[in-house]
């Protein structure tokens, strides 16, 4: 089983996001990046499948701040190969990333490609289905369970209201992972350090960036707030007392 997992770094939403002086992009100067959380689930799902049916897991990411740490963490969890896409990755979008990935993956003959179903900063679609189309593979997204048998993947796809649908997908295929079968495993930093020693990150230059297929952004801004919550101030006891009053007022107590 040859499994490829394309992942990417995204802005950490816990930090405050600011707009750059040009007004049409995020200010990246102080931006902290973290691994897209759905990609973390895709890595976990790939490793779970490797543990169940055997195989090779390759994790591929475009160059970005802290991406080496994310790749080595994947290796510490059980990924076999790490590839970093280098070049003009600063202004990469989903279409450009899918094209760059397709160029690399075409030579790899994968059985399965697992990637996060989406990223919060996707503005021109998702990498998974774009990549599937470039590679002429089928795609299913919002997947929260994957089983492999006889060149077929049996997947559970999520619908609203807790409804699931089971699909049969012919391999090779691309799956957009919403959640892995098991929560992503924790890995101790000492194991990541070992992975740094034992695993090499291969670099592949993506050449000229082709971002076509996206829309130009003329303005970025913080959402205008119509009605913000009335903020309760004071120490925790004062706030709690006020909350009790509010709950009585609304007939909750």
């Amino acid at each position: 089983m040859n499994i490829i997992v394309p992942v990417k770094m995204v802005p950490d939403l816990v930090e405050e996001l600011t707009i750059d002086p040009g007004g049409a992009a995020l200010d990246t100067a102080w931006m902290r990046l973290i691994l897209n959380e759905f990609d973390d689930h895709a890595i976990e799902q790939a490793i779970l499948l490797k543990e169940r049916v055997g195989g090779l897991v390759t994790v591929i990411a475009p160059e970005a701040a802290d991406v080496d740490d994310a790749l080595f963490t994947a290796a510490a969890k059980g990924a076999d190969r790490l590839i970093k896409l280098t070049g003009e990755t600063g202004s990469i979008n989903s279409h450009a990333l899918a094209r760059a990935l397709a160029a690399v993956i075409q030579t790899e003959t994968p059985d399965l490609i697992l990637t996060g179903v989406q990223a919060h900063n996707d503005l021109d679609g998702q990498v998974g289905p774009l990549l599937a189309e470039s590679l002429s593979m089928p795609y299913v997204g919002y997947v929260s369970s994957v089983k492999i048998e006889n060149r077929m993947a049996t997947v559970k796809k999520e619908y609203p209201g807790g409804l699931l649908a089971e699909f049969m997908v012919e391999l090779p295929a691309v799956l957009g992972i919403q959640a892995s079968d098991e929560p992503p495993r924790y890995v101790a930093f000492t194991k990541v350090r070992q992975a740094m020693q034992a695993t090499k990150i291969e670099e592949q230059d993506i050449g000229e960036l082709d971002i076509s297929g996206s829309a130009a952004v003329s303005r970025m801004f913080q959402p205008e707030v119509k009605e913000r919550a009335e903020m309760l101030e004071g120490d925790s006891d004062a706030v709690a007392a006020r909350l009790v009053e509010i709950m009585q007022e609304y007939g909750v107590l």
Partner: protein
Amino acid sequence: MSENILVVTEHLQGRVLDITYVMLAGARRLAEQTGGKVIAVLLGYKAQFLTQDFGADKVHSYDRPSLEHFSPDAYLRVLEAEINAEQPRAVLLGHTTIGMDAASGLSARLHLPLVSQAQRFDGSNFVSQICGGKIMAEGPLPEPTALVTMVPGGYRPEDGQGRNPPILEKQAPGLEGMRVRLSHFIEPEAGDVDIAKESVLVSVGRGLQNQNDLELVERLAKDLRGTVSASRPLVDKGWLPTSRLVGKSGKAVKPKMYLALGISGAPEHVEAVTGSNLIVAVNTDPNAPIFNVAKYGVVMDMYELIQALSNALEQEAHAA
């Protein structure tokens, strides 16, 4: 090339999904700009009755047994044919488990530009909501045909309703050789409480540090005669069952009080709680989007608040 706006309508198990009406409302705004018509595209089997209240100028219906349920491969093939035939100014799809499976594939297959997470249109500009609702991105709708996936929040579903638009039967292209096949649906597990029917929900998110701390939350919920629910990260960690998930792929809730503890308020969560009578949010991040939908907000560590609120409730119980 036409100035029409196509809406890829969504339905599930015989019911129209709300995003369909939101898209029809958005399409109407765009059509007013372009001078074109709003065309609702329906893929299904014996599903034409669903279109009675669509706010569209007409319906293009692809009706055959193999389209009864959503399947990414089949939708791609039918929509490819529809878009090629219509050459519309824009195609609206849901930024949903259905629309997202088709939109990006169409963009790659037809070499048409795609805009994701659009919340509304401002003139002929799209306005997208990105970064968990913290940033809006605006730009001119790309040409010649813009594919757009839409999130809720910009238009009211009521504004996408209308009466009996005429239905045009369309011939679906051949659907043999599909590589993705639905085997069956799996209904949500019964037996647990139905959070959609609870009158008090104490909901926890990423702010909860470890699974054992759920006890504290359970106790508070008990004091409030309520039930514990959660946002996506805790369900993905396996700390709470999917039946307790509030959000896009979980339940939409409408309790008397929704107490959100350590929940930042990503759009997928927010869209499912706006029906609540009272929302109280507690978060350490003063910029958390949850405060934009809450009636009352508290910037505080959720543990400190739980402790203080439990004490206050106990005092109240003694006083009564």
